């Protein structure tokens, strides 16, 4: 196996990549700081945040309040937008200087992109998309829990020899720690050696799309042919319940919804706590993608629809008759909150 650029003996500390955009730290970075604190509890292992950007120094204190002992800040106008080239070059130098034992990143689009790049540069391993992190009892090695192959298996992965031990973790896996404004920490400004020619990509515009991941939704409101392209009620119910909207194949075919919302054999397999399935007849190719839900409520005007065989609660009626009173009832139950 290829040797990493530095070894276990020289390495120390848990580092967390502090991802920021538009002057705000990503929630997952704070979650990782909280988890790192929990991992090192009772041990003298420093937790270091790495922050890259343009005029982002103000965020360092927030990271310290969330659990960092030290924050290394690389501040440069060339880092104002995330670019793979620029960020990979700068963070690699910071890592080679500080030699962390463990490096954690959020499994965000940018975090995933950056993690792969720096793992190769540092000749180390990367456990991607972890759903839990542990330290092995005797060795202190990082163990990443990874769900593989559509949830078929859980793998525990460690990186015994090479350093840093890298992992990316999905957002929402760990809790955001309660900030402690009294916490003290060190803020270190690191020099940035970056020239315009190092960045091969020019960012013309930064647009945040409406990307969804229905596989992680706890509540799914799914609609099919029966909605006739009218998603107003479905969207309203989903947002009231803090859920996502999923669809069967027909809305994708008709262009009513994008493929990233499609449930089923050629779409996504979901496992929400609650799935409200509206106007979907329930061919098994669809059902197999929602059957792992804890509770399925099916609404369909056809009493013979096969979806009812998979459902825990069956409502035989047009979804447009059922959803308005349901939405009203949810709003009422939410009471003084006035919804969300």
């Amino acid at each position, binding site marked *: 196996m290829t040797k990493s650029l530095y070894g276990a003996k020289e390495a120390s500390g848990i580092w967390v990549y502090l991802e920021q955009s538009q002057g705000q730290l990503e929630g997952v970075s704070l979650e990782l700081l909280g988890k790192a604190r929990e991992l090192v509890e009772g041990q003298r292992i420093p937790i270091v945040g790495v922050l890259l950007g343009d005029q982002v120094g103000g965020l360092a204190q927030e990271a310290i309040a969330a659990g960092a002992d030290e924050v290394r800040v690389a501040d440069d106008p060339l880092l104002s937008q995330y670019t793979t080239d620029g960020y990979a070059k700068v963070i690699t130098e910071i890592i080679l200087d500080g030699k962390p034992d463990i490096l954690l990143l959020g499994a965000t689009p940018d975090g995933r992109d950056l993690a792969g790049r720096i793992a190769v540069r540092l000749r180390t391993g990367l456990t991607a998309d972890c759903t839990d992190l542990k330290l092995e009892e005797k060795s202190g090695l990082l163990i990443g829990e990874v769900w593989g192959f559509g949830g078929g298996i859980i793998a525990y992965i460690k990186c015994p020899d090479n350093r840093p031990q890298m992992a990316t973790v999905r957002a929402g896996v760990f809790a955001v720690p309660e900030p402690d404004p009294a916490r003290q920490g060190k803020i270190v400004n690191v020099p940035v050696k970056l020239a315009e020619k190092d960045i091969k990509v020019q960012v013309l515009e930064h647009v945040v799309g409406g990307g969804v991941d229905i596989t992680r939704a706890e509540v799914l409101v799914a609609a099919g042919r029966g909605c006739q392209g009218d998603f107003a009620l479905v969207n309203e119910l989903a947002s009231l319940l803090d859920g996502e909207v999923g669809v069967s194949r027909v809305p994708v075919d008709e262009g009513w919804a994008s493929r990233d919302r499609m449930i089923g054999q050629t779409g996504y397999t979901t496992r929400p706590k609650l799935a409200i399935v509206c106007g979907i007849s329930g061919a*098994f190719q669809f059902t197999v993608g929602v059957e792992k839900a804890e509770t399925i409520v099916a609404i369909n005007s056809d009493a013979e629809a096969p979806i009812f065989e998979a459902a825990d609660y069956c409502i035989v009626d047009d979804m447009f008759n059922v959803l308005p009173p349901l939405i009203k009832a949810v709003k009422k139950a939410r009471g003084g909150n006035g919804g969300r």
Partner: protein
Amino acid sequence: MSQPVDSILLKDETWERVDKATGGAAAPCFQCGVCTAICPLGLVKGETISIRKMVRQAQLGLPGWADGLWECTTCLWCESRCPHEVNITKAILGLRQLAWKEREVPEGLPTLLWDIYFDGNTWGRPPSERPLWTKGISVKEFSPDDEILLYVGDDAAYDRRIQKVARALVAVLEAAGVTFGTLGEREPSCGDAVRSVGHEEYAAEIIDANSRLFQEAGVKTVVTVSPHSYDMFANRYPNLSGEFRPLHYSQYLLELIEAERLKFENELPLKVTYHDPCYLSRRNGICDEPRQVLQSIPGLQLVEMERSREDSLCCGGGGGRMWMETAAGERFSDLRIQEAAETGAEVVVTCCPHCLSCLEDSLSVVGKDKLRVLDLAEVAHLALQSQAVTSDAASGRS
């Protein structure tokens, strides 16, 4: 075609790999292009995929992946017209096999293989749920004294729609007094899904393990619900003894009718058309048996679609396409349902789970009140039930 093309360097090493994976299947091709012309993808795509080019790739060991490699449904129409009898699907599956080695396969297919590996079925459902299709009826475990082993298969075991087919078939077998059983929770995946997405090595493992299981269980005659399982057992399980006799259930029902064990005594006044599954008709020459079963039902009228028998139009579900998405407007089953509706039939009958799923999915094209899709086993079961209501149906027909 007027654009200049970069020259391509042929490498012996690549050629050897491709030649090995495809078993030299492409060698006899003389590039006439009939395959590309006949490929049904031309019916649904503005620009069809070039089967000829794919075969050329397999022949010369050209680098890179051919367009359309994963769109082939292995319907075999190209092979049926090939003047040099090139085993085209073998070449295509060989190229897919290389794609697995390079880890360049479509999204979702690795999950399919892991589902089969961990759960023993293509649905990723627990093996303990395999016998759930029998709910409401009792089907015993197979013993070597039974006349047949009923091989249910992944679709009929798990897919709630296809479960109805298996239950109808059980009722028909019982009416004919057949002694049979299933392997229950032990029933394995037949390997067709794995083979058709090109993972030849894993398919070989499955075939090996299943052959041993069948031998240990003392299986002789095995009757399958799916033509795909039939094709596997009949053509790709080389190590089973001469006593091993795989049959698709349409063949077995005809045997029962000819032996006068299965009789349809009363009329079933239905106008039906029959959709030939590729894996029965083109691949295995089984066109007459299902039709003869239908024609043995009094009162039933069989009308033919123009594309029928060995010229049947594929439903779109073979070659692993059931686990890949086919864009709206590119589904053969939409055309097929249209063709079935044009015959004036009330029911389009088929006898393959994939065909049934695809055709029912496309039914919305013509509207559900005009046409229904039923499996042959379901029609046979309906015909038996019509005996129970005396001959009302017949007299009410006129």
